[in-house]
């Protein structure tokens, strides 16, 4: 679920970090080389088959805002900037270089000679068109909200982007936005051919064209998508010739497929039980990598009992994250002690510092001194959006809270579509939520969570946190941003408008002989098919 940005002011001076990355001329990844086609030393004719239970919504970046659609988009299209494998800072990709002219003007110079997979040249006009149509389409998925610093969804004026020549693009932002280089790395910022894609509606999914390492040659919804290596690609080509993405209905079918060798990789969403079983399966290896998706419990601070800070703190003292990690998820996730996950610059274990790593029932009791216990709590979760473990997770949370004698939890659930409507209407006193990053920066976990009650409409308001968010956006000084994030996390932990529970790992089951999956597992959540090969 993605929010609309409201009220966040973004200011940036010279982006020292971005300039440093730009000066590296393409970053640390060898696959973001200096502009000429890479050698063929590591190329193979291999076909990689990946099984998944994810489904795609659109392969047109004009209105794609889900993980799987973006995974395909990252491989079929190009963006001006990218996060290299193992990195967490944006570096130029389609752009040769990008830099701030002033706090609201960001200019990128494109690489020469780049072509789309259909052979047509990629120019600045295509870049401008891509952003314009995303804003004008204003699609159901809401990806245009990522570009709120450029324009409001549905309201393109024509002044947002300048293209003085075929290789120069200048973004004229409405307000300074330090995260703009990160936003240019996202799937929503992928570049489409202006002579092919319609201006106000989406391109059919089986007819998408990009300038990335692959071309989409076949798509049957719910069945199969096929990517083939794009020989027109400007940079280091993909290591494999073809990727078949096979869609499965559920994890048992996917598990059988990887065990039987029908697929080379099984990625999303194997259950913890499946993963445990596959660890001993012949010919299958489990590959893990850093993930930064998070799950947390939210309190509506206008409703009982969440409006009472003492109750929120007592719950934070009581929840046993390690028990959830071990008993519900079999160690496939890790305990989370902050709304900013480990692995991002600026993360601190603020909730551990405030409440301890393990439950503290005495402290919880002290928080509730003078109150009548057990305190009734209505707690909501959704079975259809956050995976099969949600039911067990919230049953375990209920068991922990009821077992303390301080609370009496009533669990309720709703399907996701209705859940998103009702949580916004103050129907839930406390509820489950999760977050996938748009880009790997701590700002993505702060700016959407705290100002104006957060995207989940929890009504929590803390001017000191809002001020710290403004401070971290207003500077490119790494240490100042780290200090600001530390302050945000400390203040949030003290008030506990949310209780972070766990942070996910990226986990795939991989057949023997398949390489490269571990290289692509990093906080950027870009599944880089081009790194994968098999013997």
């Amino acid at each position, binding site marked *: 679920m993605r929010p609309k940005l409201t009220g966040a002011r973004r200011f940036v001076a010279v982006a020292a970090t971005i300039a440093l990355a730009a000066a590296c001329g393409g970053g640390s990844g060898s696959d973001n080389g200096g502009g000429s086609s890479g050698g063929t030393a590591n190329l193979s004719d291999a076909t990689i088959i990946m099984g998944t239970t994810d489904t795609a919504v*659109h392969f047109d970046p004009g209105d794609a805002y889900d993980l799987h659609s973006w995974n395909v988009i990252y491989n079929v299209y190009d963006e001006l900037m990218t996060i290299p494998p193992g990195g967490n800072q944006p570096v130029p990709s389609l752009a040769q270089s990008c830099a701030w002219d002033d706090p609201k003007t960001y200019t990128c110079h494109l690489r020469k000679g780049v072509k789309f997979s259909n052979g047509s040249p990629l120019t600045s006009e295509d870049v401008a068109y891509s952003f314009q149509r995303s804003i004008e389409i204003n699609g*159901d998925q809401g990806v245009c909200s990522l570009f709120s610093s450029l324009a409001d969804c549905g309201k393109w004026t024509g002044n947002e982007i300048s293209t003085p020549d075929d290789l120069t693009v200048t973004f004229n932002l409405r307000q300074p936005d330090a995260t703009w280089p990160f936003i240019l790395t996202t799937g929503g910022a992928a570049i489409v051919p202006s002579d092919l894609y319609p201006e106000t509606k989406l391109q059919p999914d089986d007819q998408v064209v990009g300038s990335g390492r692959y071309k989409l040659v076949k798509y*049957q919804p719910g069945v199969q998508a096929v990517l083939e290596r794009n020989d027109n690609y400007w940079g280091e080509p993909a290591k494999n010739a073809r990727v078949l993405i096979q869609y499965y209905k559920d994890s048992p079918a996917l598990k*059988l*497929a990887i065990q*039987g060798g*029908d697929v080379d990789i099984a990625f999303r969403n194997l259950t913890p039980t499946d993963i445990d079983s596959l660890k001993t399966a012949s010919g299958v290896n489990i590959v893990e990598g850093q993930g930064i998706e998070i799950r947390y419990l939210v309190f509506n601070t206008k409703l009982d009992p969440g409006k009472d800070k003492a109750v929120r703190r007592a719950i934070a003292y009581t929840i046993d994250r390690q028990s959830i990690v071990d008993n519900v998820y079999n160690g496939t996730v890790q305990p989370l002690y902050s709304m900013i996950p480990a692995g991002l610059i600026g993360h601190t274990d603020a909730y551990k510092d405030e409440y301890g790593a393990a439950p503290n029932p005495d402290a919880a009791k002290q928080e509730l001194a003078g109150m009548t216990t057990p305190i009734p709590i209505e707690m909501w979760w959704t079975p*259809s959006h956050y995976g099969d473990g949600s039911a067990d997770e919230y049953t375990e949370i209920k068991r922990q809270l009821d077992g303390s004698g301080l609370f009496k939890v009533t669990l309720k659930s709703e399907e996701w579509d209705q859940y998103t409507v009702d949580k916004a209407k103050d129907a839930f006193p406390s509820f489950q939520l999760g977050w996938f990053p748009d880009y790997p920066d701590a700002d993505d976990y702060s700016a959407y969570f705290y100002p104006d009650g957060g995207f989940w409409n929890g009504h929590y308001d803390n001017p000191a946190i809002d001020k710290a968010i403004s401070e971290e956006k207003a500077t490119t000084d790494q240490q100042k941003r780290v200090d600001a994030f530390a302050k945000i996390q400390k203040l949030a932990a003290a008030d506990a408008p949310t209780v972070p529970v766990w942070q996910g790992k990226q986990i795939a089951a991989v057949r023997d002989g398949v390489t490269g999956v571990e290289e692509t597992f990093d906080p950027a959540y870009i599944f880089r098919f081009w790194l994968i090969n098999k013997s």
Partner: protein
Amino acid sequence: MARQTTSLRTYALTRLVLVIPMVLILLTLVFFLMRVAPGDPVSAALGGRLSPQALAERRHAAGYDKPILVQYVNYLGDVARGDFGHTITDNRPVTEVIVENGAATFELTTAAMMVAVVVGIVLGLIAGRLRDTPVDVGIRLFGIVIYAVPPFFLGFLAQLFFGQKLGWLPTSGRASPETQFLLSIHTHFFLIDSLIDGDWAAFKDCFLHLILPATTLGLIISGVLIRLVRVNVLQTLKGDYIEAARARGLGERSVVVRHAFKNALVPVVTVLGLQVALLLSGAVLTETTFNWPGIGFELVRYLNNRDYIAVQGIITFFALVVVVVSVLIDFVNAWIDPRVRY
């Protein structure tokens, strides 16, 4: 004879005319049942994601702000033109879903029907012939149990045993990923398309993938046929003409095989047609279990996405298929049995 032909023609025409109110009643039921829940398909699918204004615009574009009777008339007109609308989830014409995925369901249900007929008729004949023997008891027990077992449970068992434990057969999909990619699509029937291409490897791959789901679904249907055929055999063997044949000195084998069995199978034709509805509903569960990309598989996917336009279109198609098949079965019955007349 001429009188019989005229009577058959009259029956056929009358039966065809009766299709019209039957279809109208079915379409009306589908239309209004889909609107029993509060809201409309657009709000149900997208209400959590769109602003109220955007939602109102979408509802207006889809015609859901019109009076219900106007929507109903428009719906009937669209169905008459073969326009079942576009899915909200992936903006596909529902007709395209029916054609592409319908072929997969037809392939599965045809194979399942073959399994059902072979297993059901053979076992039913044997049970009827060997009445009250241990063989008869065993077959009757099998028929009851196999009919009662949920398709997904039988499917899971088949996957675990034949797929995982023995490794003999594939457990999901219509074909291996490579075959699916490489196969040229002519008719959307993979077995036929592979034969058209002369690709025996693909034919074998598709056939192997068909075995488990078709056998699972077919065995469940066979439970009905076993009992029906057995009862018919027992009744037929009691008939006077059977006694007469024996009295004339015909061998028992000839009496049973050439006379009794044939007559016992006549009512099976009617029942087979009625099993179409059971096949389609069973296909939903079977396709989901075996990841078979048929209409049932898509129906579940669209249900989970609350894509009521797609769901309405697919259910309408199911209803029309059942009507057409039941009419055909009535024609066949009338042709076989002169007593079937209006």
